[in-house]
């Protein structure tokens, strides 16, 4: 064993210095090594510089600058030009805290534009001068349009066929109403076919007449525009047509449901006709209706020029209900006293008695089975 | 056999069928549990609206009268105080905000008289 004294004496003589060897890694290396290269952010073009569409104006993290006029923004907030023009950085009074960059289409154009000024817009399309190429471009169809062609032609043919059928029926009937020359008759039939189509769409007879006249005048104008007729010819043709129209409208019109020609009635005559028919119909109210009566009522309701589609439906439900009301006493019987042939027993809830009751109805009550 | 683990045993007193209804109702939204809207005919709807309109007119009239009365009460207090300004002592006295206008010490009315009907040495 050494004594403490002897050691300290020894140290004083030899002077030993302690050395620490590196036994542990230095701290901090882990994060320091993660440094990435700069992302090269910032504006790529400056105020007043010219840019073409798609050119990048600004790379940024978040929207330091917002895309203004004629600029777009990418998913990493890159701002790019949408139109060729000159870059302008500006503030927008509608968003006072934002900076904007926009592309002005003209060098001396300032952004933002006044709110109520019209926009400056670029057209950008170039005309095809080669005729063959232009024709090709014009006749180009989308797939959707191409696939629809077959159906469209079919519909067109059907319409033409339908018009043809209408004109032949009108041609057969026209002489019963007015005497016309052949030229006039063709015009008249054309007019009546158009009138029919308009009346079917709930135009009044008078409106349809006027519209057809106007159509003819426009077709004359079209002929004039294409130099097929002169101005004088136009005036004479027009006057001729108006006279023909007056003559025709006075005597004949089309019934929309039967597609037949009928005698024209003015609005007073029509309302008189309506009242007359309603009076006749009232004679059938609360009575047993035979199958002949039913036919007669149907005929009355569908009298030409009297009622429109909605009115006809209302009248049918009023005067030809599927089951006659119980107020028609002949159609009601007491089921306990036996059921006549064809009769039916109906169970229904009585509001006043507050219970279900049984009522017998004879077969005459069921108009829909007549 | 499949045995479901039950953490707590159900402690409801209702029987199974009632409980089933309760469960079904709990799954329904509140709006479906509302009583059905009465369907009125076109005429009756107008009648209903007319009755509502008349009731609204009547209750508006009542409210207006009430507001008018309160306003008049306020104005008469105001005028009285204005007049009192000529007599400063009275004005000061009237201005004193009486904290408890109703005596807090007063007994609550009971069916029987109190054991000690009168406190002779009462001090506030």
């Amino acid at each position, binding site marked *: 064993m050494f004594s403490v004294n002897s050691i300290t004496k020894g140290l004083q003589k030899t002077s030993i210095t302690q050395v620490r060897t590196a036994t542990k890694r230095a701290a901090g290396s882990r994060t320091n090594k993660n440094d990435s290269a700069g992302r090269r952010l910032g504006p790529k073009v400056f105020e007043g510089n010219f840019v073409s569409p798609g050119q990048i104006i600004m790379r940024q993290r978040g929207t330091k600058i917002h895309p203004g006029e004629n600029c777009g923004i990418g998913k990493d907030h890159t701002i790019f030009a949408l139109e060729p*023009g000159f870059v302008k950085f500006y503030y927008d009074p509608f968003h006072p805290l934002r900076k904007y960059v926009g592309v002005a289409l003209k060098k001396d154009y300032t952004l933002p534009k006044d709110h109520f000024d019209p*926009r400056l817009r670029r057209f*950008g*399309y170039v*005309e095809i001068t080669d005729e063959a190429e*232009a024709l090709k471009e014009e006749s180009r169809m989308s797939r959707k349009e191409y696939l629809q062609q077959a159906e469209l032609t079919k519909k067109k043919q059907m319409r033409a066929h339908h018009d043809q059928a209408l004109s032949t029926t009108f041609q057969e009937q026209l002489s019963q109403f007015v005497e016309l020359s052949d030229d006039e008759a063709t015009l008249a039939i054309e007019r009546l076919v158009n009138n029919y189509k308009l009346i079917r769409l709930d135009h009044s007879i008078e409106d349809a007449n006027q519209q057809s006249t106007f159509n003819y005048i426009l077709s004359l104008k079209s002929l004039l525009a294409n130099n097929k007729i002169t101005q004088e010819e136009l005036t004479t043709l027009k006057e001729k047509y108006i006279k023909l129209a007056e003559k025709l409208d006075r005597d004949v019109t089309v019934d929309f449901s039967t597609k037949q020609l009928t005698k024209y009635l003015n609005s007073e005559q029509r309302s008189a006709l309506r009242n007359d028919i309603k009076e006749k119909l009232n004679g059938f109210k609360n009575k047993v209706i035979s199958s002949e009566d039913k036919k007669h009522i149907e005929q009355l309701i569908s009298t030409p020029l009297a009622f429109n589609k909605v009115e006809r439906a209302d009248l049918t439900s009023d005067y030809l209900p599927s089951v006659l009301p119980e107020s028609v006493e002949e159609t009601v019987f007491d089921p306990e006293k036996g059921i006549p042939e064809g009769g039916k027993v109906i169970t229904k809830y009585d509001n006043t008695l507050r219970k279900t009751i049984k009522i017998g109805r004879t077969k005459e009550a069921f108009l829909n089975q007549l | 056999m499949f045995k479901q683990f039950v953490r707590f045993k159900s402690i409801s007193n209702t029987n199974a069928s009632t409980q089933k209804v309760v469960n079904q109702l709990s799954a329904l939204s509140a709006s479906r549990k509302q009583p059905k809207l009465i369907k009125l005919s076109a005429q009756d709807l107008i009648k209903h609206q007319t009755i509502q309109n008349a009731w609204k*007119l*009547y209750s508006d009239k009542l409210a207006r009268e009430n507001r008018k009365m309160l306003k008049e009460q306020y104005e008469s207090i105001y005028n009285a105080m204005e007049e009192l300004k000529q007599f400063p002592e009275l004005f000061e006295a009237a201005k004193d905000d009486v904290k408890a206008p109703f005596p807090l010490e007063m007994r609550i009315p009971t069916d029987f008289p109190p054991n000690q009907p009168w406190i002779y040495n009462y001090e506030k």
Partner: protein
Amino acid sequence: MLRIFKRSLNSGKGIWSNFSNRSETLKVQNIKPHAATYHSPLLIDDAFKSAYEILQQESEKIYQRAQTVEKDDLKDKLLSQAESKNPEVLYNIQNGNDLDITQPVYRNHLKKQWENYDLMILMQRLEQFKVIPDTLPTIQPTVDVKVKFPHITNGEFNRWIVPGEFLPSFLTKQPPTIKLQQFDNYKNESKLFSIVLINPDEPNLETNSFKTTLNFGVSNLSLSLTDDSLDVTKYLKYENGSEEFSMFKSYEPILPEVNAGDYQRACLFVFEQPEKINVDQINAEDFDIRSFVNNYNLSPVGGTMWRQKYDRSVNDVRSEYGLSKGRVFHRVRKPFPLI
């Protein structure tokens, strides 16, 4: 039931049963009976009768107040208020009966209906498609403008058009019927209107930009509450020389060319005129609507718009109007700058 609804009304002596000063159109129309299975709520008729009396008395007071009022707008408001609780009027409004626009109560109802839906749609379309400010700086409509093309025999288009929708060229080849529903014309007076239809998207190849063309222009058109539309009858009268208005640009449909932009906007504006005007020297090919409005001191009161693009019917309509075949543009937009 039916009887009570109609006449606590007829038999009564109140203002709502008196049609000597009030219009017949305030009477209930097309009243429909209940279904056979329907039950009325108990005692509703008794309550209705007394409610009717209360409201009628109130109405009478409002009528008396209206007589003392001088200002037109206030008077109109009171007259509308006096009838607004009338069950007959309410029935007509709520059951789709025809409403007489000359009656203040119906007019106010229609105005509110217009403001709550059609006007909102219109303003949305005008703003989204940048019709304002590309044409006029802005517009605050006070007149409901409706447009339809009555010549069409195809049921799909036999209706008033919705602002902003795409219309085919075969539909727009004839001048439209334009209906102007005024709401603040209290006395049913005739007022003078101008109508223009412009297309701000006509290509201008010299500047590689666009110009505005005038496609239809009408002025000095006198319309009131009841005579409210420019329709075929009036066009025919104009054609026959018995003109009631002047047409400074006859109708020429918008006929977009192939690939000339996504769509072209047809913007129809209605202006109220302070007096008769004589429009001359109009450059329809390059029309400046703002200076037009300033020159003739017009105030825009309404408008509508639709869109059009090239379709297969364009060439036919072009030949009908004696126009040459339209230009064809490349499908791809080129990056040439504005000139």
